[in-house]
């Protein structure tokens, strides 16, 4: 930054000193981008303008590498009446009936969480909550999808304990229930852990707010925390450069979150909405004031003038460039009519929130920023916020993928368990594995029931909350991805993530409505990675079109790689569903002695990319399970139709039927006596990860009705056993495991990793 010079670099000075050397390269701006900025402005940018462009044109803010692919989410958007606000706003909004709307979004905070796990994860939660708030909604729940390096690596415990404590600390202090998510360990995330945080908010249709500044003379108000040196350059430097082996070279001040401030911000903002005092609103996240001012102005119909010296500071030595780039947390920007400003300020005072009028909407076309009397920014806001560079980066299918896909995990090459004892040991090793063991060490650090509306939370398949205490209407959300599937085939991998999240929501009896996605990939400058990204987006867009669930928004995180090694393609998908009456949901909890266990769906020999193969051999090869979205839809509507007959329902996914059955026993402390279908090899029946399957329990009297409904829906339905009182999983002809034999490794695994 130009902190060495105290000369204010004004627009006038920029016009008269065209040849001054500017540190554009240090700010991550490419030569052609710098040339384009000069072309747009017809002069060199001032240092403040350069700061704004650099941060807004970074990969993180501009989506310059991903934009050309993301357009498919719009082009292939399924016809639906449920979508009230689509991609492009802070978050998408979905109609859930009765005049209620729900907004939800998942966003990454990966790189900051590697550098400082606690604060990185905490501010990740804080950021997504403000996104939801900015749409006009009351945040009602959060979820988190986490990925860490190898359990045995010495750095893993630092990262896990910091991130989990950060997610829990921030969410718990805010008083938001954390209703689920996932936590996965894989060596590919060693130097690149992933923190994807999701927030859901509810509002009445008429309360939807948008980020735009209109109405000449309206005031621009900055409210919330003071501005400090947090994360200066964080967005462009932290999020757009890969870490090299020697560790992060640049260390801007880490953003520190203050959840109690955020809580005040939530209540204060909701009070303003209720009093109709806000014309437009935007949260301050990555790129801080640069982003908020340029996006508000760009979405509006006029210009905007900002007086930067009015911004309340925590650190009086900050330069104007630093104030524009600061990522201090817990700040919002609102556009307010002059006649409402007193009422607005009253509400801020009541909540002890600092609010300052920092500017106004003008009848011009430019965003102008003043530092005292000097004009230091004078730009067309669209060129900063929306018309950034767009790259058509080269992408090509990597050569090595053919060899990987041909490397099928055959029984000859990788011997499989055959005898009952071998199958039993395989199940025990999966139950005690880092990815399938009990998540309780993590979820017990999260408040899952605060606010009193939580119906289902971890360890259920999906989280369900009532949208309001006055209603029985609920929403169900699940976040899923198996990145090994993506490593085998990114197109199918993205569809399998969608497929699983859809199923998790559907097995509760909810109707899936819409999705959000967080696309985590390596460097877009690598054509192989870019191809993986393009394929995943294509897969997701095609899948959403088939399922009729539009993508409402989300986030792209690139450069998740250390040196030449990228993470597995990790397209995390969040599916949102609605359930009219939460009292009619089904879950893994339930089933009475004597109930019949039915396996819904069809099992094929599909183990590549699956958990058994990962635990037994760490093998990455072959083709992932076949995608069958029509079968997912059939399964979903079947479960919805017969849900009053089901005493419990659980999806079959990671680890196959064996894990699904073991989880039922572990959750319900009853026994299951199971006869596997004779036509399938026991190993395949137990550990294959074929899609569109679920295990349900029904009373004996209801078996015929459910089987008839399944036949009508075209879903294969196989009675495989019944619920017993002897607290053991008994697979006839294979093995018998007492519940305590399974519980021991299942509960011990995560605490042992963290010890």
């Amino acid at each position, binding site marked *: 930054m130009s902190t060495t010079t105290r000369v204010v670099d004004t627009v006038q000075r920029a016009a008269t000193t065209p040849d001054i050397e500017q540190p554009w390269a240090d700010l991550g701006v490419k030569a052609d981008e710098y040339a384009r900025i000069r072309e747009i402005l017809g002069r060199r940018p001032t240092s403040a303008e350069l700061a704004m462009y650099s941060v807004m044109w970074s990969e993180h803010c501009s989506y310059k590498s991903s934009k050309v692919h993301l357009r498919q989410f719009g082009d292939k958007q399924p016809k639906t009446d449920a979508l009230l606000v689509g991609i492009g706003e802070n978050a998408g909004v979905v109609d859930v009936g009765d005049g209620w709307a729900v907004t939800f979004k998942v966003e990454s905070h990966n790189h900051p969480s590697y550098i400082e796990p606690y604060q990185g994860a905490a501010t990740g939660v804080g950021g997504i909550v403000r996104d939801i708030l900015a749409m006009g909604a009351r945040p009602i729940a959060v979820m988190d999808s986490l990925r860490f390096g190898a359990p045995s690596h010495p750095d893993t415990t630092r990262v896990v304990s910091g991130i989990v404590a950060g997610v829990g600390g921030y969410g718990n202090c805010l008083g938001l229930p954390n209703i689920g998510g996932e936590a996965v360990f894989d060596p590919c995330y060693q130097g690149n852990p992933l923190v994807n945080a999701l927030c859901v908010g509810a509002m009445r249709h008429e309360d939807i707010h948008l980020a735009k500044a209109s109405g000449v003379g309206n005031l621009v108000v900055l409210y919330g*925390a003071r501005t*400090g040196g947090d994360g200066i350059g964080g967005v462009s430097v932290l999020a757009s450069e890969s870490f090299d082996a020697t560790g992060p070279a640049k260390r801007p*001040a880490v953003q*520190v979150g*203050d959840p109690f401030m955020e809580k005040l911000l939530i209540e204060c903002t909701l009070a303003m909405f209720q009093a109709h005092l806000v014309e437009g609103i935007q949260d301050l996240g990555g790129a801080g004031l640069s982003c908020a001012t340029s996006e508000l102005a760009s979405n509006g119909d006029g210009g905007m003038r900002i007086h930067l010296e009015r911004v309340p500071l925590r650190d009086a030595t900050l330069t104007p460039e630093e104030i524009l780039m600061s990522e201090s947390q817990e700040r919002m920007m609102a556009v307010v009519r002059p006649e409402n400003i007193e009422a607005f300020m009253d509400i801020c005072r009541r909540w002890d929130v600092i609010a300052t009028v920092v500017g106004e909407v003008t009848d011009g076309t430019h965003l102008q920023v003043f530092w005292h009397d000097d004009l230091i920014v004078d730009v067309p806001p669209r060129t900063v916020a929306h018309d950034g560079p767009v790259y058509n980066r080269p992408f090509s299918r990597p050569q090595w993928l053919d060899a990987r896909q041909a490397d099928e995990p055959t029984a000859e090459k990788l011997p499989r368990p055959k005898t009952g004892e071998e199958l039993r040991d395989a199940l025990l090793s999966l139950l005690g594995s880092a990815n399938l063991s009990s998540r309780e060490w993590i979820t017990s650090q999260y408040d899952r029931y605060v606010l009193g509306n939580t119906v289902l939370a971890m360890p259920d398949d999906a989280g369900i909350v009532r949208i309001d205490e006055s209603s029985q209407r609920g929403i169900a959300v699940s976040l899923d991805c198996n990145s090994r599937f993506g490593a085998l085939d990114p197109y199918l991998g993205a569809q399998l993530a969608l497929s699983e999240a859809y199923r998790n929501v559907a097995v509760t009896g909810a109707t899936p409505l819409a999705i959000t996605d967080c696309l985590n990939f390596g460097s877009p400058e690598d054509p192989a990675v870019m191809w993986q990204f393009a394929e995943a987006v294509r897969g997701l867009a095609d899948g959403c079109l088939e399922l009729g669930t539009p993508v409402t928004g989300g986030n792209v995180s690139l450069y998740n790689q250390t040196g030449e090694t990228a993470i597995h393609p990790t397209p995390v998908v969040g599916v949102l569903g609605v359930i009219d009456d939460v009292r009619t949901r089904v879950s893994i909890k339930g089933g009475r002695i004597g109930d019949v266990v039915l396996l819904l769906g069809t099992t094929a020999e599909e183990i590549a990319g699956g958990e058994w193969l990962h635990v037994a051999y760490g093998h990455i090869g072959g083709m992932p399970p076949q995608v069958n979205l029509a079968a997912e839809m059939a399964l979903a509507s079947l479960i919805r139709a017969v849900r009053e007959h089901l005493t419990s329902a659980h999806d079959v996914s990671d680890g196959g039927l064996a894990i699904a059955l073991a989880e039922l026993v572990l959750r319900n402390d009853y026994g299951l006596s199971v006869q596997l279908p004779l036509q399938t090899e026991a190993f395949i029946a137990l550990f294959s990860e074929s899609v569109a399957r679920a295990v349900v329990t029904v009373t004996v009297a209801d078996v015929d009705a459910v089987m008839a409904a399944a036949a009508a829906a075209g879903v294969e339905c196989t009675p495989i056993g019944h619920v017993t009182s002897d607290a053991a999983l008994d697979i006839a002809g294979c093995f018998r495991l007492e519940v305590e034999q399974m519980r021991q490794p299942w509960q011990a695994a995560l605490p042992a990793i963290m010890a």
Partner: protein
Amino acid sequence: MARILVTVMLKPEILDPQGAAVRNALGRLGLTGVNDVRQGKQFVIELDGDLDADRDALLHKLAAELLANPVIEDYRLEVDAQATA
């Protein structure tokens, strides 16, 4: 015997929500003119024998990397002369 005091504070540019809460409380409870409050922690380490150069160097290293989080905190190390025989 040597007694060493290691004081760990958030770096000045890092937000300190706890310190800010204490600052507000002090004002509320009648103390006027409170400009700023920063909250940190102190480690009191007692060693057998003298603090020789080797142990001093190691202590500095551990203070910087273990006692403080180098990403967000600074440390100050001092020998408590009164308690050090």
